[in-house]
C-alpha cells in the first residue's frame, strides 16, 4: 500500500490563521476543474473505455475466454489480434473478459475498505479514549507492514482464491481511511454546530451520522478515487503470485503470470500487463486532479 503522502491528512482549517499566499502557475493549473485538465480527461476517457469493455465483454470479445480452440502460442495476427496462449485461448478475449473481474472487484474492495475504515476512524475520533487507542493502534499495526506483504500473508492464511484475495486487500487497505476520517472528525468535533446539535439533544451516533458525515465525506471519496489504482495493482499482484484468481479464470494478474512462464511469447504477458498499466494510470490521473482540488492550500485560494 503506497502511503498517500501528499494527501492532506489534516482537515483544512476553515477559518482564520491563513497566511497570504501567492498563486504559482502550477497552483492555477490545479485550480482548473478536472474536465479542463488534459491528464484528468485522458484518465477519465480510459476509465470510461474499460468500463464499456467490461459491460459489453460478451459482445466485444471474438471468442469465449476459456475456449481452447486455436493454435497454441500463435503470435498476433489478423485471426487472433493479440495472439493465443499455451492452451490455444484467444488473448484478446481473455483481456476483455479480465476487465469484468478487475474493475468491479477493485471498486467493491475500495468501497468496503472505505466504509470500514471511515466508520472505525470516525468512531475513534469522536469518542476518543480507549476506543481511539484500540482502533488506531490496530491501524498502526497494519500500516507497519508493506501492504503487499501483509496481503500475501492474509491471502495465504485464508486460502488461495479470489474472494480471499479481496478480503486480504481490504484488511491492508482500511487504515488509511480510518486515519483520514479520525483526523477530520477530531477537527470538526469541537465546532459549534456539533455543540449546538448536542445541546439540542442529539446523541453521539446521530451527531456522527447526521452532522459530521456530510462534512467529512468529500476528502474520503477523493482518497477512494486515488486508491482505485492501488486496489487494481494489489489484486492483480496477488493473482500474479498465485494467491488470487485461479486458472482458468481470465484475470489480468494471473495472465501476466502465465506470460512469465512463456517468456519468449511476449504477447501472452504484454497485453494484460498493458491493461493493468492503463487502468492504474487512469485512476491515478483522475485521483490526482481531485486531490489538487481538495488540497487545503489550493482550496483556500479558491476561497472555499
Amino acid at each position: 500500500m503506497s502511503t498517500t503522502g501528499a494527501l492532506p491528512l489534516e482537515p483544512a482549517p476553515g477559518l482564520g490563521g491563513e497566511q497570504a499566499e501567492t498563486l504559482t502557475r502550477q497552483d492555477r493549473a490545479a485550480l482548473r476543474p478536472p474536465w479542463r485538465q488534459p491528464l484528468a480527461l485522458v484518465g477519465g476517457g480510459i476509465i470510461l473505455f474499460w468500463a464499456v469493455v467490461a459491460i459489453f465483454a460478451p459482445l466485444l470479445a471474438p471468442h469465449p475466454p476459456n475456449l481452447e480452440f486455436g493454435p497454441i502460442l500463435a503470435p498476433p495476427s489478423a485471426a487472433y489480434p493479440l495472439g493465443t496462449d499455451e492452451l490455444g485461448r484467444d488473448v484478446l478475449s481473455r483481456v476483455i473478459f479480465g476487465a469484468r473481474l478487475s474493475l468491479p472487484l477493485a471498486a467493491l474492495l475500495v468501497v468496503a475498505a472505505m466504509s470500514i475504515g471511515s466508520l472505525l476512524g470516525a468512531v475513534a475520533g469522536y469518542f476518543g479514549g480507549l476506543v481511539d487507542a484500540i482502533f488506531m493502534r490496530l491501524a498502526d499495526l497494519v500500516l507497519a507492514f508493506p501492504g503487499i506483504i501483509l496481503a500475501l500473508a492474509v491471502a495465504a492464511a485464508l486460502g488461495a482464491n479470489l474472494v480471499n484475495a479481496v478480503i486480504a486487500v481490504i484488511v491492508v487497505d482500511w487504515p488509511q481511511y480510518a486515519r483520514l476520517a479520525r483526523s477530520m472528525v477530531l477537527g470538526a468535533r469541537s465546532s459549534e454546530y456539533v455543540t449546538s446539535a448536542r445541546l439540542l439533544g442529539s446523541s453521539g451516533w446521530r451527531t456522527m451520522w447526521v452532522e459530521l458525515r456530510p462534512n467529512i465525506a468529500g476528502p474520503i471519496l477523493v482518497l477512494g478515487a486515488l486508491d482505485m489504482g492501488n486496489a487494481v495493482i494489489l489484486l492483480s499482484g496477488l493473482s500474479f503470485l498465485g494467491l488470487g484468481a485461479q486458472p482458468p479464470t481470465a484475470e489480468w494478474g494471473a495472465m501476466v503470470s502465465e506470460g512469465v512462464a512463456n517468456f519468449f511469447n511476449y504477447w501472452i504477458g504484454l497485453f494484460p500487463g498493458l491493461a493493468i498499466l492503463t487502468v492504474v494510470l487512469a485512476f491515478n490521473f483522475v485521483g490526482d486532479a481531485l486531490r489538487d482540488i481538495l488540497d487545503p492550500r489550493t482550496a483556500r485560494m479558491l476561497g472555499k
Partner: protein
Amino acid sequence: MSGDRRAVPPAVPGAPLLEVEAIDVSYARHGHSPVRAVTGASLTVGPGEVVGLVGESGCGKSTLGRAAVGLVAPSAGQVRYRGRPVEVLARGARPRWLRSLQMVFQDPYASLNPRRRVGRQIADAAALGAGAALDGKASSDRVGELLDRVGLSPGVAQRYPHEFSGGQCQRIAIARALAAQPDCIVADEPISALDASAQAQIANLLAGIAAQSGLGMLFISHDLSVVRKIADRTVVMYFGRVVESGPTAPVWARPAHPYTRALINAVPRAGAGGTLPAELPGDVPDPARPPAGCRFHPRCPEVMDSCRTTDPPGVDIAPGWQSVCLRAQPLPATTTGAGEVPGAAEVAGRPEA
C-alpha cells in the same frame, strides 16, 4: 408534545429558572498549574428576564455561559435549572428536560452545519426538542413559523448556510434554538461577530423574544451600550469574578464598583466633542497567578492599602444589587450588612455617569 417535555422533571417549585451558585471553573494545563477561569461566580436568571453579562475579553464570561448550559463542568459550586442540577454534557444524549435550556453562539457561520439545508437543521432541532419526529407537513409548517418569527421568509429553508449573511445566519441559529421550545437561552456574544446594523437587529430580536415568550436569557456581551438597552439586570465580571450585579438602570447610573465605572467610562459617546473615552490602565493579570487581595487592585484607580491584602466580600447596595468592593457601601435606603463591611466608612467616589 410540549406538555410531556415539561412533565419530565419534577421541577422544584419556587426555584429560579437558571441559577448559577458560586461556581469555580478550572482549566487543566499540561505541565502547568490549572487556570481558574471562573471563581465563585453566582447569578440567577428568572422567566422573561434578560440578564446582561459584561466584562472584557478573557474575564471568564463565556466560560460561565458554557458552564451554565452544562458544556463545561464546574470544579466547585452548582448550576441549577428549574431547581435541578444541570448535568454536564457527556457521551449520551442530553436529557429531555434540559433541552429547553439552549445556547446561541458567537460565530453564526460556525454554529450552523455548512453541508445541511437550514430548514433540515431547524426541523431536526424541533424533533429533538419534542422527543419525536414530526411528520412532513407539520415539520415544514413549524420551520416556516420559526423562520417567520426571526424575520426570515419561510422560503429560505431550502438553502445552505453559506448563502446567507452573518446576521441572517444568526437569525437561523436563533430559530434553531427556538425550535427546541426553550425556556432559557444563554446567548454567548451573539452579536460580536456581526456588522453594526445587524448587531442592533439581532439584539432587538433576542430581547423581543424574551419579552414575548417569557423565556429567560443570559446575554453575554462585551458591548455595554447594547446590554444597557436590552438587559433587565446587568452582571459585571472581572478576571473570573462577578464584581457587580444589579438592575441595569441604577447600575448604569450609579455604578458601585470602580471596574464598572471604568467600563462605562470607556464606552465612546456620540457628541462627546471628539474626546476619547477614558482608558483603564494596565492589563489583565496572568490567570495562573491572581493578585492577592482584591483581584482588581493592580488596576484600580481608587486602590487602598487594605485592597492589597483583603479579598472583598459582596456588599448589598440595595435589594438585588451587589458590589464586591471594599469601598462599596449600601445606599441609605438599606440597612443590611453595612456594619460588616471593612472600609465602608470611607467615601466611595461615585461620579455621575
